């Protein structure tokens, strides 16, 4: 049974259709990345899976349960979101920020339980954030900050994580660090990942499967190697692309006219 199921999903904002009739299954414990040019509807897709947007048609379900009919609290225990531009509240410590991920478990009137605190400690250690745990979130570098946002999502202890451009603005090494951390969670923790990425090379290297989205519709859906080599990919971006095999990894290179 697939963990994340999108069935004939359409989302509108006013009279504009943002995505239309998207059907997509992400198997449990796999990584699916959505690629496509700006304005293709990637962020809308991710936000709808996270329950932040209501579909005008169709449905999203996680392990068979429809996301639309869940309370915020139930949903936060099933799917965690790493937004494209996370808000970083100055004055909050890294530990308190990561602990926000436990909100759905302890509720709003009770203090975090021992399990909540232990989960936070474990996640902080796993992402080597423990040495920063008392720092003000505002003092972190871009890479540290993104690791912290990932830690908050992991603290939610969900089976599914959706990430919107999680490596934007990071240097090469930090991009790889974030993606490898995530890959480890998929391989070892059985996490199901639905992410969006602009970097086609990294998208191809880290995902089990790529979904090409354009003008709000799925153009192609398949194994990474096939999608990066497809004619459709070049058509969507309106440019020629070459794929070169470097030590067994596909590298996508844009060719200027």
């Amino acid at each position, binding site marked *: 049974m697939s963990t994340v199921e999108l069935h004939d999903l359409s989302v509108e904002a006013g009279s504009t259709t943002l995505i239309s009739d998207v059907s997509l299954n992400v198997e449990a414990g796999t990584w699916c990345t959505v690629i496509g040019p700006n304005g293709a509807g990637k962020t809308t897709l991710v936000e709808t899976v996270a329950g932040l947007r209501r579909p005008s048609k169709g449905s999203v379900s996680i392990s068979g349960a429809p996301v639309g009919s869940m309370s*915020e609290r139930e949903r*936060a225990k099933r799917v965690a979101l790493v*937004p494209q531009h996370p808000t970083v509240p100055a004055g909050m410590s890294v530990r308190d*920020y990561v602990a*926000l991920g436990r909100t759905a478990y302890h509720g*709003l*009137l009770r203090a975090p339980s021992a399990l909540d605190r232990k989960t936070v400690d474990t996640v902080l250690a796993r992402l080597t954030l423990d040495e920063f745990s008392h720092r003000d979130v505002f003092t972190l570098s871009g890479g540290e900050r993104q690791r912290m946002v990932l830690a908050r999502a992991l603290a939610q202890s969900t089976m599914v994580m959706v990430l919107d451009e999680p490596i934007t603005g990071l240097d090469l090494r930090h991009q790889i660090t974030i993606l490898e951390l995530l890959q480890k969670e998929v391989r070892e923790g059985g996490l199901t990942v639905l992410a969006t990425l602009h970097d086609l090379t990294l998208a191809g290297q880290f995902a089990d499967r790529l979904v090409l989205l354009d003008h709000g519709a799925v153009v192609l859906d398949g194994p990474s190697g096939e999608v990066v080599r497809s004619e459709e990919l070049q058509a969507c971006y309106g440019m020629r692309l070459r794929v070169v095999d470097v030590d067994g990894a596909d590298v996508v290179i844009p060719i200027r006219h």
Partner: protein
Amino acid sequence: MALVAIVTLALLAVAVVCGLVIGPTPIGTARVLGDVFSHVGLGHSTLTSTQSAIIWTIRAPRMVLGLLAGAMLAVAGATYQGVFRNPLADPYLLGVAAGAGLGATIAIVDLGGGLNTPSWTPPLAFVGAMVAVVVTWVIGGRGLRSSTSTLILAGVAVAALLTSSQTFLLQQSSPNSIALVYIWLLGSLASASWSSVELVLPYVLVCVVVCVAAGQALDVMSVGEDESRSLGLPVGKVRLIVIAASSLGTAAIVSAVGLIGFVGIIVPHIVRLLVGTSYRRILPISVAFGAAFLIFADTIARTVMAPSELPIGVVTAIVGAPVFVFILSLRRQMAS
């Protein structure tokens, strides 16, 4: 944090004693305290019946009302700042002040005939304040689906409408009623009695408890609405409960003491400078700090120009602004 809490509570205790001891009729601190302790079965009072009446029917209810007003306005200001994520938010943001002002004006001009401040003033001010907030809430999209800025703008529109209606009413009335309304609007604890304390106490107690309990939710909301929803926070519900509690408590206080400005905005900021940005700390400390602050302000208001009184709103600003600037500069020095 623990130190700040202890100091604030000590400050509140000193304020309570000042509120009872300081006044135009000098009664020694020891004798006043002796009388207070005699009421709980410790020792004997040495006060005359007149002195006892001054303490228990004039100063005590006034001090308690000031305590409640300060606590409520400060905690409401802090919750508004949290729920709107806006440092300029104060308890009057959604039209409470304008609604109460119009209600009081109707009472004084129409019911009192511009000759006195009738007993109908507090209930009408309360109704005006609540109607204003409810109208703001409804036209602002009920705060569930819309953004908070829609709600703030709706508040601006409602306040403008009500304030101009009030101005129109005043313009049609006598100079005497203008003076009465103006005095009411400036806010005062002069008419405090145990019955006014009894009237506002239930509202204030419930609303302060709800606001303080919202600390954890407001901390989550500091990451924005979408993110807090994705973390499991029912943002719409939290906003409704928190705004309802802050507005109800503020309306009750405003109906009893008029519009006391500055407490709701300055106290949470002073507290924030002292304890950091977590609402779990800001809210409870604001309750105590606001209470102490307003008792001190009222003590100054009723003594510096005795037998006449300064408007308490003037004192809160004149005292509050320098205190705020002082703590701000202290913080900067500590940071550098």
